[in-house]
Every structure is written in structure tokens, then in C-alpha cells.
């Protein structure tokens, strides 16, 4: 039995449980996906799409990552090497024991998506949180309308989740994939260009959209979406802040009176407009 959200709240929420990394997938030169189970091969917790988990190598540190997918008995986290802990994580091998606690945050509002067409927009590692929702939609295909994914990275090598992009998802019914890279390169016959421009070029009908990527991508994609008539409550994104406790106590991940770890990380554009622009 996986630990449910309610059970997690009863145990000391700041103490991680022991878990182990059972599989490591090299996604790009600096992104790896880690498959994590408990010591007795169970799912450490059962996250909603978009929820977060606090992963630690206790001697080095602890950091919050979005859960990119869950399986029957494991969860997955795609992690880019950017700092001390993530560099150390990239050094570990399968079988490594780690600390984990969670799930944290609100996750995507699944009910809101039911029966609707959804446009997913991701840039670089920004596809990681979005993927958890895409996988949910793929698993329960009948609950959702048409799925469109626009995803871009700097180069072909930098595209995350290549297996999904080029093998798994193309087979999913009523799902369109638009993959782009920033610059022309040998062996690439797909689209070339930045995500915001590609989105504009594809001229989507207004629908629910989930976007996540580097700030510069968000900055230029938002006006494009608004021009196409997307409503603020239909533009959904996930935010990133430095976090320590994950349970809305330690203070640092606030945006105004919201704590990203607890009230986020998923926000609609409508909600973000109410918050101070400090993220």
C-alpha cells in the first residue's frame, strides 16, 4: 500500500523515508530521470500530476523536484544538474538509497481538464512537471479531449523524454506532437525555432493550456496565447522557488501570501495576476 496524502501528514512531515533509486535514465547530457521506490519496492507516495517530492542525499542536501510520472510501484523525477545536490545526484548509480518525502503542493486541477482539449507547452526541463499530466491524460485517454504538445529544447540532444516524444506519444490517439529545436542541426528534419514563435505559428484555438519552461519562454509565450484569445483561467503554469520544508512553514517560497510549496506550484494566469511579480 502506498502512503496516502493523509497518512503522510500524520508522520513527522520533515523526516524523509528511506527509498532507493531503481533505475536511472539519461535523458539529455545534463538531465537524468530517476525511478524511485521504497525499500520494499512500493511507491513512496501517490502523487497527483504536478505535485512535488523532496528528494535527498542527506549528507549533501535536500531539494524539491516535480514528480514527472508515477508507475504501479515507483515514482519518477527528471532532474537537471544545476547545483550541488543535483550534481551529486547525477553521480549516483542504480541501487543508491535516498531520502524522500512528499507529496507536496496542489497538483494540476484534473477535474477542470476533464473532457477538454489541452495544449501542453514545454521548454527544456520544463516538460518535467507537464509530463506528469500528459501521462495522466494518456493513461485515462477517454477522460480528455484532443491533446497537443509543443515542446522545444536548445538542440536535439537537449530534448527530454525522447522515448515518449518519438515512440510512445505518436501512437496515442488524437494527440498531436510539435517538437522544435532552437537551431538547425544535422540529422534533424523537424521544426526549428523558438517555442513562442512556434506556438504563434501553429495558431491554436483557445483551450486549456499548461505551460512550463524557462522564464524567457514563458515571457514570450504568454502574449502569444493572449493574442490568440486564451483566457487567463485557462493558462496554467507551475512555478519554481527555493524550498526547504515543503509544508508552508519555513517561509522562503512565498509569493505574496501564497506559499509555492503548499498553495502551488500550479497556478493559473488569473491567480498569478493577483500575486506580486516576485518569482
Amino acid at each position: 500500500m502506498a502512503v496516502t496524502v493523509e497518512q503522510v501528514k500524520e508522520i513527522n512531515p520533515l523526516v524523509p523515508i528511506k527509498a532507493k533509486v531503481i533505475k536511472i535514465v539519461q535523458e539529455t547530457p545534463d538531465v537524468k530521470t530517476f525511478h524511485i521506490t521504497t525499500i520494499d519496492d512500493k511507491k513512496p507516495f501517490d502523487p497527483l500530476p504536478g505535485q512535488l517530492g523532496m528528494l535527498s542525499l542527506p549528507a549533501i542536501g535536500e531539494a524539491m523536484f516535480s514528480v514527472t510520472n508515477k508507475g504501479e510501484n515507483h515514482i519518477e523525477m527528471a532532474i537537471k544538474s544545476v547545483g550541488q545536490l543535483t550534481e551529486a545526484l547525477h553521480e549516483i548509480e542504480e541501487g543508491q538509497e535516498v531520502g524522500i518525502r512528499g507529496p507536496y503542493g496542489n497538483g494540476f486541477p484534473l477535474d477542470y481538464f476533464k473532457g477538454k482539449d489541452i495544449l501542453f507547452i514545454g521548454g527544456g526541463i520544463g516538460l518535467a512537471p507537464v509530463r506528469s499530466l500528459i501521462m495522466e491524460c494518456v493513461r485515462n485517454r477517454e477522460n480528455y479531449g484532443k491533446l497537443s504538445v509543443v515542446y522545444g529544447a536548445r538542440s536535439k540532444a537537449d530534448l527530454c523524454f525522447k522515448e515518449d516524444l518519438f515512440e510512445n506519444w505518436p501512437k496515442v490517439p488524437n494527440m498531436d506532437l510539435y517538437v522544435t529545436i532552437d537551431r538547425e542541426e544535422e540529422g534533424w528534419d523537424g521544426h526549428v525555432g523558438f517555442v513562442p514563435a512556434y506556438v504563434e505559428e501553429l495558431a491554436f484555438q483557445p483551450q486549456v493550456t499548461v505551460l512550463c519552461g524557462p522564464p524567457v519562454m514563458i515571457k514570450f509565450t504568454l502574449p502569444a496565447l493572449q493574442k490568440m484569445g486564451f483566457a487567463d483561467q485557462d493558462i496554467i503554469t507551475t512555478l519554481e522557488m527555493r524550498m526547504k520544508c515543503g509544508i508552508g512553514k519555513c517561509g522562503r517560497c512565498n509569493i505574496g501570501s501564497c506559499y509555492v510549496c503548499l498553495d502551488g506550484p500550479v497556478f493559473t494566469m488569473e491567480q498569478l495576476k493577483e500575486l506580486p511579480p516576485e518569482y
Partner: protein
Amino acid sequence: MMKIIAKERLPEVLQLLAKDYNVLVPAKFEGVSRFTPYSADVELALEENVLMPPKDIFFPQTEKMYKFKAKDKSLEIEELPVEKEEQLIFGIRSCDLKSLECLDQVFLTKGYVDHFYKDKRDRTALIALSCLQPQEACFCGSMGVDPQNGVGADIQAYDLKDKIGFKAISAKGQEILEKISGLLAEEEVTIPTFGEFNLKADIEGVPEKLQGMFDHPLWADICRKCLNCGACTYVCPTCHCFDIDSEVRGEDGVKIRCWDTCMFGEYTQMAGGHNPRPTKKERVRNRFMHKLRYFPERYKMLLCTGCGRCVVKCPVNLDITAIIKKIKEAE
């Protein structure tokens, strides 16, 4: 009628309570007063509130959370034994009781209970002490605190100049009072009138007004003298931000949590280098916004009790009452 004892006989009461509790009393050492375990040679400092707020009794500056052992691929995580000792704070003031209300909101509500805090809170009894007169930086009256009647104590003690009066508030307080009743006389008393506050702050409408002041030029002005040190937040009874860090020696390690402060740049610095609050303007703004707007929005109360510690201890006199005034006057 009130149970009373002559002030000079107060140690007898504390002595008796010390049999059942770890009694913490206000005491001063080298110019710094704080709650200190009671013993016969501790000199009580009852004239004014302690400099170091009682928050560290519930939320220590450094606290061990759990132990771990990491060797090659293996990891062991071990929770630490919980202390069982009952403790009792004598002499907590109304403003600091108010701060515990704020901390309770943070650590005990919104879906998660902080076990470390709750454990200590549950085994600590509180004897509040009324204030005789305001210190020069006190402004608790402006923050809705009654300096002579605290909220949330088990017993309210009254400073009657030469005597101390006791009134039980909670059932636990009643129990404690019975333990010491042999030392107390019963007497009709009048509670001395409390003097005028030297410092005031008109908080009326400030949280609402701040909703529209995120981009106000005021922040760029008031932040200029701030040194971005942590003095204000560390002496604040309500500031509760913390960091989690490990202490590692070889294979063994301890996870600790320790006070942190929104005044330090590193506080919000992300691994990739981005910092949402990169300069002192954003940090100063966040501190005051948190106290006066964000916290009221989230928990329906101010995150300032008017204790005046930051006014006294800020090395550059960045005075929250002056800032409240500036907010009120801002266009």
C-alpha cells in the same frame, strides 16, 4: 480576591515549581536577558521584558531533526528520541504570548503539524506576567495586545509592585496554582494603572493599503539604510523562517534546522542562480509586507506584537512604527 506573594519571596514559588518542572525565568547575563533555567543563583530580571524572545524555547535557533548514516549506496535514517520533561515559563509577557499565537498558526495549521514545535508547546506551561509600565520602544497597545492581560497563558501573574498576584486561567493553571497555594495569601488587590506608550503605530487599514503598494517607491527609499543583517528577525518573537542543513562527519550526519532570515540574499537564492529577491529593496519589502500584509491575509492576524525589540536592536534604527507611519502617509 487574588492569591498573592511578596515579590522578594517569589524564588520560593519558583523553587517549589522547579520540583515538577524545568522552570524557565527571565534572567540577564552580560547585558542580554533571556529565559534561563531557574536555579537558586539565577538573578531574576523582572523589570522589563527579556531581549531574546521565548520563541527559542519552542523553536530553537538550532535543532536536531534526525540522524543519518550514509555509506556507499546505503542510507539509514533515525529519528531522535523526544524529550519528555515538562517545562514551565514564568514571566512571559502579553506581547510574547501573542507571538505564540502567531507561531501556533504557522506550525500547527494549514494541513501540516510541525512535530518538533508541537512537542515542546504541549509540554510547556505558561505563567504570564503583566507589565507595570511600557518600555520606551513598546507599542503592543497599537497591535491589539493588552500588556496587563495576556491571551493563552495558563496563569496570569500580576506585577503589583511589591507583590505578585496569581490568577489561574486554564485547568492546567489551576493545577499549578494549587501546588503553590501553600505559599500564597489571599488579598484584595488593585492592579496598578499602566502608563502611556511612548511609541504608537496606527495600523488601521495598513494591511489593506499595502495590497496596492507592492510597486510603491517607498520601498526603494526605506531599504537604503538597511544593512541586511539578521538582527531584527532573530530578536523578533514572531519571525519563524528556518533553514534545513546537515552536519556531516564521515558517514554520520545530523539534519538540523536553524533560524534563517529573509534579510540574507542566500535565503531565496536558487540552485540555477536565479534569485527572486536579489537586492535589499525586495528583501526589506518582503519583511514588512510579510508582517503587515501577507501574514494577515493568510492567518487573519498581524505578524507583529509591538514588543519593540527590533526598534531597539536594529543597528540603523529601521523602525517598524516609522514604516507603518510612512505607509499610512504614502500616496
